[in-house]
């Protein structure tokens, strides 16, 4: 029986799980495929986080340092798990750096992949320079400057298109990515803070700023920052002769076609299942659910269990998830992993 916990993925979920298991005296091995810890918020250069308003590099940076400075946590960067043998309480894992890790339980915080807008060519990403993604605007905000990539001008008008890569049967994304509405309403405010004279339009089917994000993001964005909400799913983004972009669609509230000039078009990209999920499923012997996210086991008394005993899964590996909830998942998984191992030891004794 081995009581070491193997944590896969060093994003908010994995960092939280690793710190959690270490805090109750367990040895943790943390494996991250990238060379940098922190996951999507760090790798994609997010600006301020919802709802704390803290810069991602500060907030997630603290999580990284907490794990790095913990003597119970061994970290493998730029490393993948290539083989998992054994069973709950006695796993033997082979890493891509040829080391072997013996662990009693495995926590998967393997996260998601941003939707690649190239899969919606009609919305102009990859065709027009001034069509960008929310991730790119996050980076602009973090750098303190909002500009059109084509010529560096400050946009007079920004259109944010919601549900890009979400709620779209045409491209096999039948889920709501949960956070894009909140992220977009927040970005609209951040754009306004940097460039008060820019008008921001959000093209929506529904606004799903869940829980407390309703008034703190949606209402605030509309009422204090004068973000315009237009009910239209854009059909096509094209270019006008003067170089500005044209968003074409039907405004369903006025029942009229629209062709509106914009300077910058932002895709509010959704959360895809991690592109590595087929590989992860194979290596760890866990199941995928119908959309391609990692599947859950029984939820009510075996919370965060995967389909394989001794392997736990949480955060955005399960489904689109926000950072705060992912952090809670990580801590809950540490509790489950350590607790179930202790139970197994008791039973054996």
């Amino acid at each position, binding site marked *: 029986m081995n009581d070491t916990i193997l944590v896969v993925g060093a994003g908010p979920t994995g960092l939280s799980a690793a710190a959690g298991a270490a805090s109750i005296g367990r040895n943790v091995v943390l494996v991250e495929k990238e060379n940098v810890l922190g996951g999507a918020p760090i790798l994609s250069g997010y600006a301020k986080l919802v709802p704390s308003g803290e810069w991602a590099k500060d907030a997630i940076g603290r999580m990284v340092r907490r794990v790095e400075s913990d003597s119970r946590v061994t970290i493998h960067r730029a490393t993948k798990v290539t083989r998992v043998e054994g069973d709950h309480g006695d796993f033997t894992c082979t890493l891509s750096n040829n080391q072997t890790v013996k662990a009693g339980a495995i926590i998967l915080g393997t996260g998601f992949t941003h939707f690649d807008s190239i899969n919606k060519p009609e919305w102009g990403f990859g065709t027009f320079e001034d069509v960008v993604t929310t991730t790119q605007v996050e980076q602009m905000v973090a750098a303190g400057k909002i500009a059109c990539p084509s010529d560096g001008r400050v946009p007079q008008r920004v259109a944010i298109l919601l549900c890009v890569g979400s709620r779209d049967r045409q491209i096999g994304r039948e889920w709501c990515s949960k956070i894009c509405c909140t992220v977009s309403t927040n970005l609209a405010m951040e754009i306004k803070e940097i460039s008060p004279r820019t*008008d921001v*339009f959000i093209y929506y089917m529904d606004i799903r700023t869940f829980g407390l994000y309703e008034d703190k993001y949606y209402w605030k964005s509309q009422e204090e920052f004068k973000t*315009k909400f237009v009910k239209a799913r854009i059909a096509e983004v094209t270019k006008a002769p003067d170089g500005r972009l044209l968003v074409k669609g039907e405004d369903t*509230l006025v029942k009229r*076609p629209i062709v509106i000039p914009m300077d910058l078009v932002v895709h509010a990209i959704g959360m895809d299942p991690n592109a590595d999920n087929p590989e992860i499923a194979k290596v760890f012997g866990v199941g995928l659910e119908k959309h391609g996210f990692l599947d859950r086991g029984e939820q009510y008394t075996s919370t965060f269990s995967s389909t394989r005993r001794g392997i736990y899964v949480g955060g955005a590996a399960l489904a689109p998830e926000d950072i705060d909830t992912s952090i809670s998942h990580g801590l809950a998984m540490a509790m489950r992993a350590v607790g179930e191992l202790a139970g197994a030891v008791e039973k054996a004794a």
Partner: protein
Amino acid sequence: MPIHEKTLLAPEQVLTSDKLVVDGVDVSGHWNTMILPRTVTDYDPDFYQTIQKYGGGENVHRCWQCGSCTNSCTMYAINTDFNPRYWIYLVNLGMVSELLKDKDIIWQCVSCNKCTNICPKDVRPEGVMKALQHWMEDQGHVPKAKSTLFDEEFARQCLERGRIEDSEVMTKFFKKTGQNLMELATKGWLGIFVARMNKWNELKEGRIGRFLARMPILHPLHMALAIVFKPRTKSWGRTGEVLKQYVEEQKRVAHG
């Protein structure tokens, strides 16, 4: 070929020539029907600020289009073209030409305020209706509403004399709105109205009774005297002028 969703088109958008020959082919009648594009090609994103400067329009930008106002609307129940939700949307995106298509019915709001009470975002749609009407009057899109004419006469007397005289407000209002006071009193609702105010039922009996009921004596006498002498509030002096100046200044500040 019928035009689907014809309700979406204004009649002037559908062009049909009775007689037309194109390249030697007779396409008279519905064969040559053309529809002008309905595409919205731009917004006026600051237009809502114009409406916000009119009393009642301050919260128009808060609307999220739930439709509670229209659903609860007294007027919508009678005329489905009366759609506050829609007008608020047009204000926020600045689709002014679309808005003006309904310019002749916006005044019909009866200020029951059911919309105000139900609105989850505290937009106060009733106030927006008022603000819209005032903006349209100021811009000359519509003639002054009867309520505006009433307000003007009311305010004029207040400023001039520091008080109003009911009968003068009434007569001037009826005159400005082209209503014949005598006809309304003898044949119309005004006579019935006065009769019903009369407390002595026996007076309503018989020819003379009915006449007397419609012709109260003392009150009109008092009113007539007031019209002739036009009494002012004591020590009113230049107060009215100063107030008038102030009101005009405030208007200039708000609407430029």
